[in-house]
């Protein structure tokens, strides 16, 4: 028997034998980008041949080809498990690209179309008696209105929100605190138009006041409060208990402990939260539409008469439907987006700069 084996051995050696290794066959590292290019080319080719005008369809075809192609090749070369992994990877990448495209396009369109009429004149003049289809006019009245309404809303919402958060974190025990926590959550989900309808029903329909910036501020404050409570609560919870205990152990009353120890420690995060809340309500259109109505001239009194605001201006200029008003709408949108983004960036900067030192 042993003879047979020794005789056969050279034969077996001469045959190409798969090398014994723990590594599976892998596709080279450059394969995904190459597949993507091929799929894109094929998608464009099919789109051209079939005469599809929408670039969206070209992209969809290319994406499909890429997914199927990668899966098929990987299943052939690497096995089913790796193929599934590659399928997931390509799906995740496509999800990302799919989402980035519209969002990038949104920013791009706003910047390109908005910068057409945006200049010093646009920022410092109101619409006045300018006919809607004419070129010219500006957003000074809208900026004034937005600043006043958002300022008033912040004056109402920030103290209430802050104190509520202090109550929940520092004092809150028992049923009242639970109820407040629950309803803050509920309030977060109140649609902006419902807040507007509420103020409309009380302030205008029942109490009989007319439209004014202040009416809008009340609705904005309702939208702002839960956001302030949530973020402040999170920040206060981050303050280490040792600080509170140290202060209380020195005989400092609780209210002074909160004012002098807890709040200064978390002031950065709280400022960030309030600024993010301001950024959020600055862009709200629906309540302003119901309660402030919009105007063409500057109204410096937020308590009397209709005012304008930036988001509402965008909406109303869009409604006019002429080329000139579209340009103005885009320019105002650009100002609004820039304002909100700067507020966001500054807020996040403060958060990073003033982050509470947790001792680790």
């Amino acid at each position, binding site marked *: 028997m042993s003879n047979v084996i020794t005789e056969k051995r050279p034969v077996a050696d001469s045959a190409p034998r798969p090398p014994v290794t723990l590594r599976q066959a892998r596709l080279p590292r450059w394969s995904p980008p190459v597949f993507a290019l091929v799929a894109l080319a094929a998608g464009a080719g099919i789109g051209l041949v079939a005469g599809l005008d929408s670039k969206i369809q070209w992209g969809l075809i290319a994406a499909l080809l890429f997914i199927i192609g990668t899966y098929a090749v990987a299943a052939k070369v690497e096995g089913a498990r790796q193929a599934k992994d590659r399928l997931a990877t390509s799906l995740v990448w496509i999800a990302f690209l799919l*989402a980035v495209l519209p969002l990038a*396009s949104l920013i791009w369109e706003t910047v390109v179309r908005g910068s057409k009429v945006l200049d010093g004149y646009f920022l410092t003049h109101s619409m006045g008696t300018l006919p809607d289809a004419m070129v010219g006019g500006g957003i000074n009245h809208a900026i004034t209105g937005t600043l006043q309404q958002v300022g008033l809303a912040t004056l109402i919402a920030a103290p209430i929100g802050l104190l509520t958060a202090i109550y929940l974190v520092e*004092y809150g025990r028992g049923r009242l605190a639970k109820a407040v926590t629950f309803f803050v959550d509920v309030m977060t989900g109140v649609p902006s138009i419902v807040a507007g309808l509420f103020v409309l029903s009380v302030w205008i329909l029942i109490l009989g006041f007319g439209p004014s910036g202040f009416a809008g501020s009340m609705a904005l404050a309702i939208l702002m409060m839960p956001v302030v409570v949530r973020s402040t609560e999170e920040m206060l919870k981050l303050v280490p208990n040792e600080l509170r205990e140290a202060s209380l152990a020195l005989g400092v009353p609780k209210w002074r402990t909160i004012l002098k120890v807890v709040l200064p420690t978390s002031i950065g995060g709280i400022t960030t939260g309030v600024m993010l809340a301001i950024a959020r309500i600055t862009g709200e259109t629906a309540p302003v539409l119901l309660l402030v109505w919009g105007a063409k001239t500057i109204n410096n009194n937020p308590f009397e008469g209709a005012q304008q605001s930036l988001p509402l201006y965008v909406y109303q200029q869009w409604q006019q439907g002429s080329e000139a008003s579209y340009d103005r709408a885009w320019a105002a949108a650009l100002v609004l987006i820039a304002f909100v*983004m700067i507020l966001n960036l500054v807020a996040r900067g403060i958060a990073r700069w003033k982050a509470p030192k947790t001792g680790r």
Partner: protein
Amino acid sequence: MDTSAIPQNPPPAAPVEPSEVSGKSVRPGDRVFLGLSRGSGIALLVIMAAIAAFLTYRSVLAIQGDKANFFTTFEWDPTGAEPKFGIAVLAFGTVVSSIIAMVIAVPVAVGIALFISHYAPRKLASPLGYVIDLLAAVPSIIYGLWGALFLVPHLSGLYSWLDDYLGWTGIFSYSQGAARSLFTVGILLAIMILPIVTSVSREVFLQVPKMHEEAALALGATRWEVIRMSVLPFGRSGIISASMLGLGRALGETMAVATVLSPSFLIGLSLLDPGGGTFAQNIASKFSEADTFGQDALIASGLVLFVITLLVNGAARLIIARRKEYSGANA
């Protein structure tokens, strides 16, 4: 020198009044501060109660004057001699557009969140998360403007294509024209809620214990298997709460829908043809021509929207509370 460092015996402490340490005695400053902060909490509750009460009051006025069934009428005419209005079309449009938005947005958002947390090159990941957070702050009116002036013209090609191949279903039949339909609204809402759903899901995915992932990797799992076995189970409740947050936004979104949709009070089978409406959109577009009774009618429809969003949020909270016990979050 050494002796000076040793503290001398402290003077005998003054006898402390028992009332001062018991904690029951409250200094005036404390009383004022507690009163203020508790008062703010109560003010918040009062506002919520007032919202419900006043909306209900005005709605009752409106529904009493409604000569048609408020829930089944396909019409909105509160100003005529015989006021007739109903929310059937609005409820249908709101639900359908939100469902479309969720179906598109949730898988994509989870994909982006996974991309940022697990797939993207490390240098790209944190700026990407930052950008997504910024995008969540873009005002809805700007999405509306972009949707109406950019998205709508670009969708008609896709819709004709869908009509060619899926038109036989009826749902995807499309007669040429501006693509200002419920489906477009759904797509736009999906784009709008993407950042917020992504942002919340990403937070959750980043909290997955490293040990779980490393254990899976050590067993030879591929990256997808790691995600399926350790990341997704851990993040499930987070994904659900993120989706519900997005759903809440989609249901109540006003301006983006008002700019994109070309409304009508008919329910058609086709989602691609213009028509339909949503609660919030209807309020925004009918408000300027409404008299007091018309405004009451709009308030009534707003109350329905309010109740729906309350139910959605409540359901989300229940799901999260129940899932919490099973997920690894408390481990």
